[in-house]
């Protein structure tokens, strides 16, 4: 290989003809990637980062096209290649590691043939033993046992599938690897493992790397240079150090500040400390009595008991990775999912054994915000249906005008313009707007308890803080107690009064966030914190240790007993 740049983009513009005219997805992009360098493309959805990568692959979706400019791959003009030449260039010179590792492998083919067909397509047929040797070598190089090749994709975990995709990407030693949000569907722990694998292997074969992403923290920990894209334009480009420490463009500054840090400044502004609504019952608002949930032979939640008094509004965070049992807890609390053992009591009344009137009362007082703002609105109705219907159902509406007024007030409170939003259909609103409407709905119904299950994980990063502060206001201004279910320790740190860390259905550490997240003591909490990529160069991933091995750490975590770090008024967690 020469010392020419791996990739040179000159004045690249990409456009999509639409009914309203031609949209320029990428505008006059100039960028050079040197050999062995890792360059991050960062921006929100629609910023043109994936489009640029696909243009390099010559795989733009119809009707997209390169309008002007040039793409040069180590001296080859990519745009001048014929279809067949381009086919041969893919994988052998540019490898693409896709975003949806979950679905990126052919479900009816074993892993090995999916590696082999890539080799055969470029180098022709060869001995099976030779193919086997190469696929085994590729799998081993990404830290997978060689026998993985004999499995079907559905037999692998998400992290393993993503590594298979990486193995596939490097199998022909390409000049350039393009990784499109390779870890977006993975847990933080797995994310760190996969990124480490990717970086090691890239350093080993010495290719260029484009890492596409939206998470400033992940970028800070993984790449050498950053290219910040907004609406198809390259707004800033420089080394990670330059950009993180002295961002010039306001958009870059926003991106950096939108990542909540443990410690650091809060994005919330507590002001009112409202009282909880008066209650008739002296029983706790919500009580878990040895609640356990099994799915077949798997125990999703081990017996757990707690009582939330509800007289002092509190935000209790339940933190864990997928499979920790946190979402199961949420659906049990809402009465959607009956516990296998134990009881859930709402003001002394068993949720599973309520009559119609009690059930309506329970629904009125326990509301929820779910993860997916796109699914929460019935596509058949205008969005105000979701606000109006429960308001009337719970007998809160005095008249049409009163309902309308309540809806408008609730919208105002979450920063939405009621005239613009209420009479629209769900598909006309963005995810952020919809999620705020759901928060407005909760506000309008003024429940005593709100269960917020990953409320911001599907919303663009720049809106997360706003929506979380809307939710925080529910407690702060309206005295609603909140159970905040999340995988994100940093937001839990800022929002909550009490944190429970869940691991495989057990509480492993619980207490005030400053202690649990600020100075974790349980090995699992430490593992989680270490896995978070901070947008801070002085704070290297996991303290920069190279002997980082999640398997041993997890094994250690399973042996360790739960750590209780202090209590908070109005919430008692039974110690096991």
């Amino acid at each position: 290989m020469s010392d020419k740049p791996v990739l040179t983009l000159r004045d690249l513009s990409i456009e999509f003809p639409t009914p309203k005219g031609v949209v320029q997805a990428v505008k006059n992009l100039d960028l050079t990637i040197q050999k062995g360098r890792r360059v991050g493309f960062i921006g929100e959805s629609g910023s043109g980062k994936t489009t640029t990568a696909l243009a390099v692959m010559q795989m733009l979706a119809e009707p997209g096209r390169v309008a002007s400019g040039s793409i040069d791959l180590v001296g080859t003009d990519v745009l001048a290649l014929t279809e067949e030449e381009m086919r041969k260039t893919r994988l052998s010179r540019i490898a693409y590691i896709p975003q949806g590792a979950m679905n990126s492998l052919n479900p009816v083919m074993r892993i090995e043939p999916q590696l082999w067909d890539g080799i055969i397509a470029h180098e022709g047929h060869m001995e099976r033993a030779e193919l086997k040797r190469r696929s085994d070598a590729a799998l081993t190089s990404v830290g997978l046992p060689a026998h993985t090749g004999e499995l079907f994709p559905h037999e692998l975990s998400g992290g393993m599938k993503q590594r298979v995709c990486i193995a596939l990407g490097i199998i022909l030693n390409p000049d350039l690897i393009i990784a499109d949000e390779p870890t977006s569907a993975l847990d933080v722990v797995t994310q760190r493992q996969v990124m480490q694998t990717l970086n090691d292997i890239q350093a080993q074969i010495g290719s260029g790397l484009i890492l596409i992403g939206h998470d400033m923290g992940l970028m800070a920990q993984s790449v050498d240079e950053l290219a910040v894209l907004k609406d198809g334009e390259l707004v800033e480009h420089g080394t990670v150090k330059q950009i993180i420490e002295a961002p010039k463009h306001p958009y870059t500054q926003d991106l950096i500040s939108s990542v909540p840090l443990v410690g650091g400044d809060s994005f919330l502004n507590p002001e009112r400390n409202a009282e909880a609504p008066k209650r008739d019952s002296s029983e706790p608002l919500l009580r878990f009595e040895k609640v356990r949930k099994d799915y077949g032979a798997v125990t999703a939640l081990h017996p757990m008991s707690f009582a939330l008094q509800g007289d002092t509004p509190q935000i209790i965070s339940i933190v864990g990775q997928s499979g920790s049992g946190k979402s199961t807890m949420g659906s049990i609390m809402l009465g959607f999912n009956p516990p296998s053992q134990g009881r859930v009591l709402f003001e002394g009344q068993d949720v599973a054994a309520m009559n119609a009137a009690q059930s309506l009362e329970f629904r009125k007082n326990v509301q929820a915000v779910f993860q997916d703002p796109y699914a929460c609105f019935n596509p058949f109705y205008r969005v105000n249906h979701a606000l109006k219907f429960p308001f009337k159902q719970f007998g809160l509406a005095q008249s049409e005008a009163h309902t309308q007024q309540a809806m408008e007030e609730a919208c105002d409170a979450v920063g939405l313009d009621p005239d613009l939003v209420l009479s629209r259909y769900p598909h006309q609103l963005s995810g952020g707007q919809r999620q705020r409407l759901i928060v407005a709905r909760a506000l309008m119904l003024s429940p005593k308890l709100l269960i917020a299950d990953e409320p911001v994980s599907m919303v663009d990063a720049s809106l997360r803080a706003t929506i979380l502060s809307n939710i925080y206001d529910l407690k702060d201004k309206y005295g609603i107690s909140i159970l905040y279910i999340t995988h994100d320790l940093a937001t839990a740190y800022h929002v909550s009064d009490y944190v429970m860390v869940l691991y495989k259905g057990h509480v492993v550490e619980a207490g005030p966030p400053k202690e649990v997240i600020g100075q974790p003591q349980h090995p699992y909490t430490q593992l989680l914190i270490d896995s978070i990529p901070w947008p801070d160069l002085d704070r290297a991933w996991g303290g920069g240790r190279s002997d980082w091995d999640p398997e041993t750490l997890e094994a250690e975590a399973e042996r360790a007993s739960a750590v209780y770090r202090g209590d908070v008024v109005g919430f008692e967690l039974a110690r096991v």
Partner: protein
Amino acid sequence: MPNYSTDDNAAEAETPVSMTRAERRQARRIRRFDNPWMNPKLIWGVSLLMGIIALGLIGRVLWDPELVFTGSAPLKLPPLGFENLRGQPGVLDHPLGTDGGGRDMLALIIIGAPNTLFVGLLASLIGMSIGIFLGFSAGFLGGRIDDTIRVLADVMITIPPLLILVVFQSAFGDVTLTIMALLIAGFVWQSPTRLIRAQVLSMKQSGYVQMAQLSGASTGHIMFKEMLPNLVPYLFGSFIASVTTSIVTAVGLEVLGLGPQRIPTLGRTIYEAINAGALIQNLWWWWGIPTLLLATMFIGLLLINLGLDEVSNPRLRKLS
């Protein structure tokens, strides 16, 4: 105003650059996304079926329906502009010719075509109602009820309706159109049941149904106000598919000489034509005209089905 940052908003902000002709055509195609129901296939299909219904309605007024009776006209006359084997030309009194029993073909199709369509529509209406009821019950109630309905639908879907009906009709002899429709309805509920069950099961997990539950909605409200409206395109599609199946079954029975014996239907006309050796005698209009009409009916149904597919699955629209 809250800050948007989605793809489409960014796109809308752009100013249109001047477009080529191909791009304008593309634009027109994409614009169809705005109102999916304005689908050319759908419109054509509905028009064809409406045409057949109109033929039945207007025909009764403008033409003499008494001509469907045996011997009301000369035998085996060809359509206007043709000659039969005996050298007789077609006459204006019987523009589509007459059959071997001396019945006027035009009157036969005016009476027969709506009859055939009626059986299909009635059978599917009943079948769909059963399907909606069972599908919702299975999806919603779950447990034993679900198992029973599911196995029953699986079992019934493998039994060819035509055979059971053949057994039935040869045992009972003549039936009315309505009874035939009822019998066919017993075999067209399985597909809608399976479809609705599957949809209900997936919708039950959907965010908006959970939201409705949180809003204290009753089961009835969730079924009929939240779920059913979203099922409409599927229900339509399934309905049209079962109309097709019903008509195929009905015509099949009629062509075998079963089904209503004294009521003119398209299938019965074909049965009589084959029995009388119309193929060898080159009396093509006797079986050809009902065949053509049935074909029109099925093409209409096919177009509606394709159109509905495109309405409910936007991905399909991109191709056309």
